[in-house]
């Protein structure tokens, strides 16, 4: 009998007949084999996109920020939209690995590794935009408070843009440490079963000499728990601070107190959608359907419908406040230039994709349908991109002075830069899927005997028993 007991009413988290060794085989063997044709095709496309992105950035740096279609009225366009979009996507990984760990949600073990990897790659993409947007990127280090020869002149600690520098870099560092400390035991598993010398050498270096000693596991558990505890307020703070970039300004449509919770909900919403997109492809290609089950997808779809509805509420609250607040500028921004006006179409794309379509997930059949989930995950990400575009551009393009009213469409280097970050993201993800254990092997083994299908079947005997007898048996098992 196992030490822990989980009701058979709960769906198994690992399907099929598994023992510890089978789990290792299933997850590690794709690393040891040759990648399939699809992998090469995907990787090549990603590299091409990355190359195009690098060329677009080169073009912008060589000729100056004027090659973008930003103008005096619209100073933030695709670049900041993409920055907020990528940072938002990055939030799901930490939410899954940290908040769900604290809430003791067993299903996180199947998806946390890939979601955290996605977080790190998404934040890498996000960071490019504000830096390149500076124009003179070679002076980007001016944002750091270091003792310089110009006085020293320090940065302005009152500025939300500087808070962002600290928030994003801390978030990236902590996510990376959390991810890598979880990877150590799994790298050791790859190392100890490696047949080739090169693999033994490389994974030996990557595993830092992990052995699986009980004392080390005890410290590892303590570390994971504290890192989860630290990451939980961190993940909420990061998008809160991103929203401060807008909320602390005096632009109608930005200057609202609802922004922090609204941004955090939106970030989780888009992040989970991206996790779904990636995992549906990954589980199919690497044959991990028994580890990333329909139950996992259903749980994530529930989060999507919840956060989507929170975001929908926020949209309606904004409209209400624009009317009730009796500020003519805010009223005009929302009712004349957002929901209507030359950029009004983007508002309605946002509303459709974020508020209306995700409602299909109220139905269990839809939540458990792979094709519907895949399509929805892409729709949600399109919607969330438009949300950021709407917030940024529809607030800026009609400002206080009608003579400076303007319109905005991106130029090719702006689009190319965005495509390039897709290239970076997917290049990293393809390498991750090939060379890293995409599922936390050790964590799956730890829940296998309580949540594996073949072990749960054995539990049916105990379901019949009285609770007292079960408690008595556990207490006297050893």
């Amino acid at each position, binding site marked *: 009998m*196992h030490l822990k007991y989980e009701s058979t009413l709960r769906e198994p988290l690992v399907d099929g007949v598994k023992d*510890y*060794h089978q789990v*290792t085989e299933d997850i590690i063997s794709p690393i040891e084999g040759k990648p399939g044709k699809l992998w090469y095709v995907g990787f090549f496309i990603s590299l091409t996109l990355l190359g195009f992105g690098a060329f677009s950035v080169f073009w912008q740096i060589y000729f100056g920020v004027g090659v973008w279609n930003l103008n005096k009225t619209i100073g933030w366009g695709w670049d900041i939209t993409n920055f907020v979009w990528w940072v938002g996507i990055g939030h799901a990984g930490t939410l899954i690995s940290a908040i769900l760990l604290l809430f003791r949600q067993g299903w996180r073990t199947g998806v946390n590794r890939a979601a955290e990897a996605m977080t790190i790659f998404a934040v890498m993409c996000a960071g490019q935009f504000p830096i390149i947007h500076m124009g003179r990127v070679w002076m980007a280090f001016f944002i750091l*408070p270091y003792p310089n020869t110009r006085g*020293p*002149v*320090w940065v302005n*600690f*009152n500025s939300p843009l500087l808070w962002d520098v*600290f*928030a994003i870099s*801390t978030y990236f*560092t*902590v996510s990376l*440490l959390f991810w890598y*400390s979880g990877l150590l*035991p799994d790298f*050791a*598993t790859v*190392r*100890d*079963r490696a047949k080739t*010398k*090169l693999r*033994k*050498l490389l*994974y*030996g*270096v*990557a595993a*830092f*000499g*992990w*052995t*699986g*000693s*009980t*004392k*080390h*596991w*005890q*410290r*590892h*558990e*303590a*570390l994971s728990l*504290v*890192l989860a505890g*630290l*990451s939980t*307020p961190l993940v909420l*703070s990061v998008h809160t*601070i991103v929203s*401060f970039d807008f909320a602390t300004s005096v632009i109608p449509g930005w200057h609202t107190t609802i922004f922090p919770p609204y941004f955090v909900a939106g970030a989780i919403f888009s992040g989970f959608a991206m996790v779904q997109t990636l995992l549906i492809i990954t589980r199919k290609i690497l044959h991990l359907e028994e580890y990333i089950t329909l139950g996992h997808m259903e749980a994530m779809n529930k989060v999507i419908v919840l956060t989507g509805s929170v975001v929908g509420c926020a949209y309606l609250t904004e409209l209400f406040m624009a009317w009730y607040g009796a500020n003519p500028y805010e009223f005009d921004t929302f009712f004349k230039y957002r929901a209507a006006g030359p950029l009004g179409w983007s508002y309605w794309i946002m509303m459709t994709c974020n508020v209306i379509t995700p409602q299909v997930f109220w139905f269990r059949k839809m939540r458990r349908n792979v094709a519907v989930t895949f399509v929805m995950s892409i729709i949600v990400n399109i919607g969330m991109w438009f949300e950021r575009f709407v917030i940024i551009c529809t607030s800026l393009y009609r400002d206080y002075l009608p003579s400076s009213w303007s319109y905005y469409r991106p130029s090719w280097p702006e689009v190319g830069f965005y495509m390039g970050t897709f290239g970076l993201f997917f290049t990293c993800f393809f390498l991750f899927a090939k060379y890293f254990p995409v599922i936390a092997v*050790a*964590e799956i*083994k*730890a829940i296998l005997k309580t949540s594996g299908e073949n072990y749960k079947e054995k539990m049916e005997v105990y379901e019949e028993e009285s609770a007292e007898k079960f408690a008595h048996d556990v207490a006297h098992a*050893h």
Partner: protein
Amino acid sequence: MAVKKFVVGLFDDEAVLFPAVKKVRTAGYKLHDVYTPFPIHGLDHAMGLRETSLHTAGFIYGITGTTTALSFMSWVFNVDWPLNIGGKPHFPLPAFIPITFELTVLFAAVGMVMTFCYLCQLMPGVKKHIFHPRQTDDKFVMVIELTEKTNAEEVKTFLAAAGAQDINEQKAEAGWWFGRYDKDDEPYLRKIQTAANA
């Protein structure tokens, strides 16, 4: 670093491992370590290991971050270069909160991970003796150190009775050394070879 002799036994099931650990401790053998492929809750208590103080270290790193951020920002705004920013106060505590929070988290996380690596001797390039290659796969490996007083044969029979399989005796380096995992070298073997060549 020291070369020691060990008796190694493999377990398949944690339900057998737990009573075996208890038996080893009551029998008074020197339990070197138990290597497991995943964390087993309660095994540290069964082995009599003390609670880790990594949490406390994390707390200390965290408050170091808090004080660093607050004192640095107020030093910059009040002492080093007092600048009038829109008539705002020189110690705007609410505006300092985001950076203070971020640095608290950053210091705590980086400090804890570094302490963790230091305590567990984890670093790229570090090598340790692996008693059984499947200790990171599916086997629970119990390692008992042989002292002058213990009889190897006695320990082997004892482990077999406790439910261990594949019991064997190993002479190995107990600590860590700098090495590569693609080469089968251990410091004490290197010494033997140099002695033989000379």
